[in-house]
């Protein structure tokens, strides 16, 4: 309970501290880090970067990270870059270029899966294996159980991709505190380290995705003004472009597999630096690539990133003069010419003095520490919706309901009616994207409104609320207003896992450690109970007498006493019930505190007086 957050947040007791981490789940590499109050990166075989690679052998044994990369068993299937296909439909995956590494089949729920030894693995399964490996790494290093994590996603991820990432974490047994946009995470780490204020751009060019965000930083508030990107544009594409060049230029390359050629391409990219040219031998054949040729190969890709960046600046409403710095993030920004090209095109100073590969995980770790209450600094991230949200209207046209770059969370209400007498159902297709035709956007799912009372056409008024939370994830609810009936909504995801699938998978993965789970649950409930007691007592001390009658005060204290006595016992169920009772009993008090705080907040004060 964070009642005290409104007043003075000062939990001193060390046992209330939580073990929380930030996870950068990348296309090529992943990182896991904590910030308490110093950055600690959990290493795998002495390396910060953990390859986002999963290997499954003929016994269905699973290896993740470096172990997966360096295994040599010929009967093992290795899966890399799974992030490229997470949240994508079967059709989308088939449209991808260079999809050689994924042999994808359609499984139930239309969910695309990779088939290995007659077992099917979805992108969510594979991602959850990576996440669970990261979790084990952090837990074994600290010898503590993880309480929660902030997981970063490309800013330009759509709702389905975000949901899929969150589900992968749930299946890995991770309590997701928040999904955080990668450039926003980088901005947080950069802003706090540098103490800079003003407006800046994060140019985040990773292994598989490109994101750009324009942000303003002022007095600890990071406000995203606009964001744009491409979730299918990254270092992978550069490797592919060089691979194509190698194949076209050197005929002997035909004798090599795509994976081998890509390895050569990758090493060219990583070693050319600012050298005039690079030469090396593959067996008896020699290969030479000049800096100019290299830039010609990658220019189409870089130009695409610059176009996206221009659009994002326009959308932010700022002129390029108002932008202080461009900050480079992501492994692909190690390519030397990017910095020079950005400086030429945007006449801004370009900063590459932060480690572009760890800054996202660093920011995520800070955010985790803030959200858990371990870190009490007055810092806030205000993010935006990356892609417009709309509904399908007559003729397959998309009608936008919430425009992109709208600050989140946000709720919007749309009113619908029937077009036939006695109509009892209404189908609404929710879509995400900028294009005008529904077919060019992503369908997030169809919502069927049922139980509409029989009336003449146009009679019923159905209010549908589209709520986007701070993670950028949508939920929908509907009410029929003429009768006051709440219509039920059936959410049918276009493809992906249903709520019950996820619960089943979480149960499956937890089955093995049931006694551990019980002990863990007891510990968690005791810590949570202590937090609730502490927070509420602080709040009551502060303003309980002012906002509550004696009777009301007493009623809360009574429930609190019950909870206190239960905390010293060992029954997690009764403690959890005690917490619920206290929270239920103090709901009106919470509401009164919020209402009273707003009055004192806004009355003629500047932000300097408040913070």
């Amino acid at each position, binding site marked *: 309970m964070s009642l005290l957050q*409104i007043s003075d947040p000062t939990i001193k007791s060390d046992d209330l501290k939580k073990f929380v981490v930030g996870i950068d789940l990348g296309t090529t590499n992943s990182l896991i880090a904590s910030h308490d109050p110093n950055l600690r990166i959990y290493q795998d075989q002495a390396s910060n970067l953990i390859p986002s690679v999963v290997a499954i052998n003929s016994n269905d044994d699973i290896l993740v990270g470096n172990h997966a990369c360096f295994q040599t068993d010929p009967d093992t299937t290795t899966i890399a870059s799974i992030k490229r296909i997470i949240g994508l439909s079967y059709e989308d995956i088939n449209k991808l270029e260079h999809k050689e590494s994924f042999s994808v089949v359609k499984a139930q729920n239309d969910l695309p899966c990779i088939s290995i030894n007659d077992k099917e693995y979805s992108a969510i399964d594979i991602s959850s294996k990576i996440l669970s490996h990261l979790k084990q790494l952090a837990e074994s290093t600290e010898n503590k159980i993880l309480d929660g994590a902030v997981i970063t996603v490309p800013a330009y991820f759509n709702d389905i991709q975000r949901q899929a990432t969150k589900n992968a974490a749930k299946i890995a047994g991770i309590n997701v505190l928040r999904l955080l946009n990668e450039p926003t995470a980088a901005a947080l780490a950069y802003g706090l380290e540098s103490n800079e204020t003003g407006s800046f751009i994060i140019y985040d060019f990773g292994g598989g995705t490109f994101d750009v965000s324009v942000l303003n930083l002022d007095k600890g*508030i990071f406000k995203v003004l606009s964001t744009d990107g491409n979730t299918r544009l990254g270092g992978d594409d550069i490797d592919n472009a060089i691979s194509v060049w190698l194949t076209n230029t050197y005929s002997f390359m035909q004798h090599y597999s795509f994976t081998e050629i890509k390895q050569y391409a990758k090493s060219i990219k990583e070693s050319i630096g600012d050298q005039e040219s690079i030469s090396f031998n593959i067996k008896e054949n020699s290969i030479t690539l000049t800096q100019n040729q290299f830039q010609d190969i990658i220019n189409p890709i870089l130009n695409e990133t610059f176009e996206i960046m221009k659009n994002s600046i326009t959308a932010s409403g700022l002129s390029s003069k108002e932008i202080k710095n461009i900050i480079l993030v992501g492994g692909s920004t190690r390519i030397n010419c990017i910095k020079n090209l950005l400086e030429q095109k945007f006449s801004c100073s370009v900063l590459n003095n932060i480690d572009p590969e760890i800054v996202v995980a660093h920011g995520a770790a800070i955010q985790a520490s803030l959200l858990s209450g371990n870190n009490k600094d007055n810092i806030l991230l205000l993010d935006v919706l990356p892609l417009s949200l709309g509904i399908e209207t007559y003729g397959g046209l998309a009608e936008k309901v919430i425009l992109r770059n709208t600050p989140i969370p946000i709720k919007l209400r749309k009113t619908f009616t029937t077009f036939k007498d006695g109509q009892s159902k209404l189908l609404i297709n929710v879509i995400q994207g900028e294009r005008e035709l529904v077919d060019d956007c992503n369908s997030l799912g169809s919502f069927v409104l049922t139980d509409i009372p029989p009336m003449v056409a146009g009679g019923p008024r159905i209010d549908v609320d589209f709520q986007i939370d701070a993670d950028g994830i949508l939920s929908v609810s509907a009410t029929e207003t003429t009768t006051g009936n709440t219509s039920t909504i059936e959410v049918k995801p276009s493809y992906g896992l249903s709520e019950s699938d996820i619960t089943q998978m979480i149960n499956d993965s937890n089955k093995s450690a049931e006694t551990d789970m019980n002990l863990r649950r007891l510990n968690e409930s005791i810590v949570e109970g202590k937090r609730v007691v502490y927070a509420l007592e602080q709040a009551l001390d502060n303003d309980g007498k002012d906002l509550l009658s004696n009777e009301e005060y007493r009623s809360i204290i009574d429930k609190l006493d019950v909870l206190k006595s239960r905390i010293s016992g060992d029954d997690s169920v009764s403690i959890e019930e005690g917490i619920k009772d206290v929270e239920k009993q103090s709901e009106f008090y919470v509401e009164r505190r919020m209402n009273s705080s707003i009055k004192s907040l806004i009355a003629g004060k500047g932000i300097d007086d408040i913070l």
Partner: protein
Amino acid sequence: MDILKQNFFQLFNIEISVDINKSDLDEKLKILQSNFHPDKFSSGSDFEKRLALQISSYINDGYKILGDIVLRVEYILKINGFNKDESKTINDIDFLQEQIEYNELIESLKDNLDNSIIEDNLSGVKLKLKNTINNIKLAYQDHEFEDMWQNLSKLRFYIKNINELINMRNK
């Protein structure tokens, strides 16, 4: 919940007016979100989280509406209880004539992009926009809501024109 019953001007403690001080609005947004954003309640009870999500969404909605001249004028009409039947047409012959002429101009510019013509028209439309905003302000002072509503259509039209012309210039 009292907070959600306040209108957006009350929420941001800004006097109801057609003009708005953008930096004041930004500042108020930060104060409000610093206290009600869901991130400030992430270890709170489900009830607190739900309230914070509602309030924070309401604040963002208010910020969007107060920060946009068209939405703001529509909102002022709404909180003054003025509901206009949208199907009613505007019978301002001069304005209709203006719309026809403008559409002809855009058609001719599509065939022949002439930057000096675009610039001339852009400054012309900007002036009209300014006058329209002034008229709306005057109408609001006298609580002439019908008049405000008539001018609102012009406001939308001129803003659309300006965006269109700027897009053409940038091509």
